[in-house]
């Protein structure tokens, strides 16, 4: 178990900056998700932690050891690839005990124990080609875990998995992490995976670390409009408006939609008014009005589109048609640059 410290970590490919100087502490035994859209620098960050890519600047420390000069074979990092990188020309057992064999260690007892833990005992002598994806995932994790790495890195391991099966795999992955209790860094572009599995989430965009916090901190108090939109399904509603001071409070003029109820805090000029779809209530008396444009009934939820605004209600809610009044709950204000006020 080891903490990871990233200090001013930077990566440039020629003129392109893949990662702006980044500082991040990943705590001992923590499950941290690096979350962001493709091209945000999350995979680059992870590859540098593993030693597969050299940083252009900054330092990576495991505990108090600087990893700058340590090659990837010596970092003691477990890595689960997006495609699992199973050695398909070997059996399950040969995959599982690969690291031990290469190190010249007797693999017998440890392989048996790991296979037992992962429910692979009956499959040990099967060829690894053609196994189902959840078995492959377990095998990929087991193959790294058997080396007892202090740090586990996972690169979008669920992105090739069928949507229906992803929930099962998420649960399995989370329970494996509880068993191993290693420091885990998990790269994903799926906010649901990050929310449900991670102890903390580091949200990235365009090579810049946007925010770090527990899932609910990041969800409830997004640092900027990017984070606000990226988390949640659907993401936060963001409406452009004009802040108007009224006494000690602020109201936002949303143009044709109306004037919002007062919010605390000083603000002026152009702002973005944000609120979660789940926090919307329909209220004919509200000054904010929009027409119902579309209704999606999806199992337990009902997503109502009010022009640019989305609202989520429990299934079975009666939705009036035409123009309706609505009240946003727990609103946030963002300045012209998108930062939270």
């Amino acid at each position, binding site marked *: 178990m080891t903490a990871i410290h990233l200090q001013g970590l930077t990566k440039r490919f020629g003129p392109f900056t893949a990662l702006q100087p980044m500082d991040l502490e990943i705590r001992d035994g923590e499950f941290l998700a690096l979350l962001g859209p*493709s091209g945000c620098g999350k995979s680059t960050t992870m590859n540098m932690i593993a030693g597969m890519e050299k940083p252009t600047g900054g330092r990576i420390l495991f505990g108090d050891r600087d990893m700058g000069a340590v090659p990837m074979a010596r970092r003691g990092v477990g890595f689960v690839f997006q495609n699992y990188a199973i050695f398909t020309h070997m059996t399950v057992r040969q995959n599982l005990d690969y690291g031990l064999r290469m190190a010249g260690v007797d693999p017998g007892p440890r392989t048996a124990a790991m296979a037992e833990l992962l429910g692979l005992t009956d499959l040990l002598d099967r060829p690894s080609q053609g196994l189902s994806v959840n078995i492959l995932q377990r095998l990929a994790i087991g193959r790294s875990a058997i080396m007892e790495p202090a740090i586990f890195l996972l690169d979008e391991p669920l992105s090739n998995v069928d949507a229906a099966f992803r*929930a099962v795999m998420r649960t399995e992955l989370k329970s494996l992490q509880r068993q191993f209790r290693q420091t885990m860094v998990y790269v994903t572009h799926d906010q649901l995976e990050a*929310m449900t599995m991670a102890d903390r989430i580091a949200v990235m965009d365009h090579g810049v670390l946007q925010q770090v916090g527990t899932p*609910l901190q990041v969800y409830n108090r997004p640092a900027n409009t990017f984070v606000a939109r990226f988390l949640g399904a659907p993401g936060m509603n963001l409406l452009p408006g004009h802040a108007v001071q009224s006494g000690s409070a602020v109201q936002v003029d949303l143009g044709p939609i109306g004037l919002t109820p007062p919010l605390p805090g000083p603000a002026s000029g152009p702002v973005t008014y944000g609120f979660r779809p789940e926090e919307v209530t329909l209220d004919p008396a509200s000054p904010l009005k929009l027409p119902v444009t*579309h209704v999606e*009934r999806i199992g337990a939820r009902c997503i109502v589109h009010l022009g640019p605004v989305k609202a989520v209600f429990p299934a079975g809610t009666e939705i009036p048609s035409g123009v309706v009044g609505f009240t946003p709950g727990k609103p946030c204000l963002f300045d012209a640059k998108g930062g939270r006020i």
Partner: protein
Amino acid sequence: MASIEFRNVCKSFGTVKAVVDASFKVEDNAFFCLFGPPLSGKTTILRLILGLETPDSGEILIDGKPALGVAERNVAMVFQNLALFPHMTARDNIRFPLVERRQPEAQIAPRVASVAEKLHITHILHKHPGQLSGGERQRVAIARALVRDPAAYLMDDPISALDARLREEARVELKRIQREAGRTLVYVTHDQEEAMSVADQMAVLDQGRIVQIGTPSELYDRPQTPYVARLLGSPPMNLSTSGAFGPGQVGIRPEDLTVTQSDTGAALITGVEPLGGYTVLTLAQGPETFRALLRGQPEVSPGTRATLSATKTHPFTADGHRQTGA
């Protein structure tokens, strides 16, 4: 402008039964969704409608008449990978089916213009597919399918390649397009949320068999088998056989479980997954595991006890069918 009807259609490939005794009717102008796990026969049904496969037995009727050959069938297809020609502009891609059919230029231009307008892509017609976003490419592909005025068009998982956020937008867009453009649309997807969002009618498939047909809410509220019950909804429906919620096999949707925290409760909270607007709890009660979907962000922590009760249950018979009258 066509209904599509299958009567006892069977199709096998060697020993693999791809479609078994499929009977259903897609009404004119309906958004009909085929939903099921991979290899459940969805794509084979599409290929049968297109005429790329012929049924081993049974009948396919289009507009009440036996289906003709591929070329005369007038059914268009939007492929999973969209299959746009990368060296042509969006306009030339859309024009392509008409040019191929040697239609006079005087008819092509207005037709392309009207389809482009319906799909809101008039401003990007001069661009090549490489310069378009995923959603725009998809609309161009749909425009190309619609331009020749097909009686029906088919889509094979057309938005699966988009990321989650774009998919949410794209499915609403698809629904709007279908509603405005009319035409019968047969749509294949493996994403239950997408299927329920867009479909007027949906058919759930299991190993080549259609196990239930109905509107999304009929299927969600009154699933005929535990299989259908668990395919729709996230997290999937809990199935209890311990008798805690009634005799036999009883299904309870996670949102229909009421969790009351109590030190003497029979259930132990083992997992708390915050989704932001919702929270998923995992609970162990006796030998069974339940998942409950709660609104908001309730203050619960793993390791505490609770009592479970259900506001609605789905009783199934021992052989896996919904109990009559339930």
